């Protein structure tokens, strides 16, 4: 860490003590969606995507991911002082997701709770907020959760990728048993209308190709460059995780930054589960934590439409060795799957109307 100056926006004394991922078991193949709409399946953005079952939503997905984070951390839920859930698919328009999640987890009432929203970076916003609360000493531990059951309009390009999943990070002070220290956090945000959903609308709209260069790539690369300007060099990162709306984008962003594909590949899950929106980059982080070694550094940059990117640097600690096996790995959740056809997909996603 000698390269980093004291004046830089790095965090001190904040660490991940537990992490947990959850992926619903249903999958629909992109080729099945393409079959329905008569689209050639030669250039589909992913192989298949996860689909929540009829009894799953952002609340249940967030709660299960968080239960795994608590299991890994091995702490009593009553020590958690904040529950933030980021999502673009909160089940209620008014009635917090976080309060239900906290009660399911047995967290006592003395905690902060808020639902966050910022398209696909709502989950990493939660990471920033909880980290700040821990760093300030206001709370001992906090849960930062990104979870979604993302909506894709039938026949729209997003229908192939809009998926379901959640990831929770349990964040506390650095110290014994920590899984990874959070060394750095910074955000890059602009007013860029690449993707939106108006009130009371069921499906989002997007700017097609406009979601690429001025949106995803501009923000991801600008945020990553901030990390480099603030003193890190690319050589210091063993893994790089970018938001993954499709399989191509994270590799393309890495190429623009001169990052070798082999540092990106360990965190890419999009091809097998699609874009889990608020959980997308955090899912990549969880998969990397599943395989990383103490001392390794991870750069994670999220992206949320509208638009912004949060950049984080994690340094893996010894705690990963004991804690990793205490909850399902991302690979195990990916392997737990059942394919459904387009008709059952429509039913599961509530697209059949009486």
């Amino acid at each position, binding site marked *: 860490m000698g390269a980093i100056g004291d004046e830089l926006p790095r965090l001190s004394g904040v660490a991940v003590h537990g992490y947990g991922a959850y992926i619903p078991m249903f999958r629909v193949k992109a080729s099945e969606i393409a079959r329905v709409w008569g689209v050639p399946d030669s250039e589909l953005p992913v192989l298949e995507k996860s689909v929540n079952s*009829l*009894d799953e939503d952002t*609340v249940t997905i967030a709660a299960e991911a968080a239960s795994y984070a608590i299991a890994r951390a091995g702490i009593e839920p009553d020590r958690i002082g904040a529950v933030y859930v980021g999502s673009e698919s909160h089940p209620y328009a008014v009635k917090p997701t976080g309060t*239900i999640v906290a*009660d399911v987890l047995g967290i006592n009432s003395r905690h902060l709770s808020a639902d966050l929203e910022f398209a696909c970076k709502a989950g990493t916003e939660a990471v920033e907020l909880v980290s700040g609360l821990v760093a300030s000493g206001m709370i001992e531990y906090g849960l930062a959760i990104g979870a979604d059951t993302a909506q894709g309009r039938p026949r729209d390009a997003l229908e192939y990728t809009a998926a379901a999943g959640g990831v929770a990070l349990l964040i506390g002070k650095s110290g014994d048993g920590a899984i990874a220290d959070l060394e750095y956090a910074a955000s890059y945000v602009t007013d860029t209308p690449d993707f939106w959903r108006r009130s009371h609308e069921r499906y989002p709209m997007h700017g097609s190709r406009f979601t690429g260069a001025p949106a995803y790539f501009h923000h991801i690369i600008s945020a990553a460059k901030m990390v480099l300007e603030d003193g890190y060099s690319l050589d210091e990162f063993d893994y790089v995780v970018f938001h993954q709306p499709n399989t191509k984008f994270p590799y393309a962003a890495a190429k623009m930054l001169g990052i070798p594909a082999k540092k990106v590949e360990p965190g890419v899950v999009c091809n097998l589960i699609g874009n889990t929106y608020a959980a997308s980059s955090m899912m990549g982080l969880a998969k990397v934590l599943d395989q990383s070694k103490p001392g390794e550094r991870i750069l994670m940059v999220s992206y949320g439409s509208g638009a912004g990117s949060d950049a984080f640097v994690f340094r893996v600690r010894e705690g990963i060795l004991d804690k990793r096996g205490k909850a399902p790995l991302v690979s195990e959740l990916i392997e*737990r799957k059942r394919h459904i056809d387009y008709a059952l997909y429509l039913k599961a996603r509530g697209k059949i109307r009486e």
Partner: protein
Amino acid sequence: MHAVFRPPVNWRHRRFRYRLVVWRCLNCGAVHHYATSICRRCRSNRVAEDKLPDRARLITYTVVKNPPVAFEKQAPYIVGLVEFEDGTRLVAGITDCDPEELKPGIELEKVVRKIAEDGESGLIVYGYKFRPVITRSH
């Protein structure tokens, strides 16, 4: 507006439905899923808060194809009778599997899922269900 689920009742039962918190009679062993100071079976006042385990074994099950109001969206769904290590039995939704995968005696784990929805505008009710234990390969 007619509400299928009254908020106070839903709220009162949440600890049981979310976390399987029960009130157990220390005299006769009866289990209550709501806070009570008197056992409804033996009238003893020796009732203590307890929590049922997160794992249970399947006794039997049925498939519901003609669901009651507010449960329509999930049909067909499986309802099972499960038994905990201490012999306590509970009727629960069984999820993440097809009926063909279920055999009496298999181990199940508790999850919290959507139980029912009161139309498009009413409450969403969450609570315990059980599913076959996730296979760990590593």
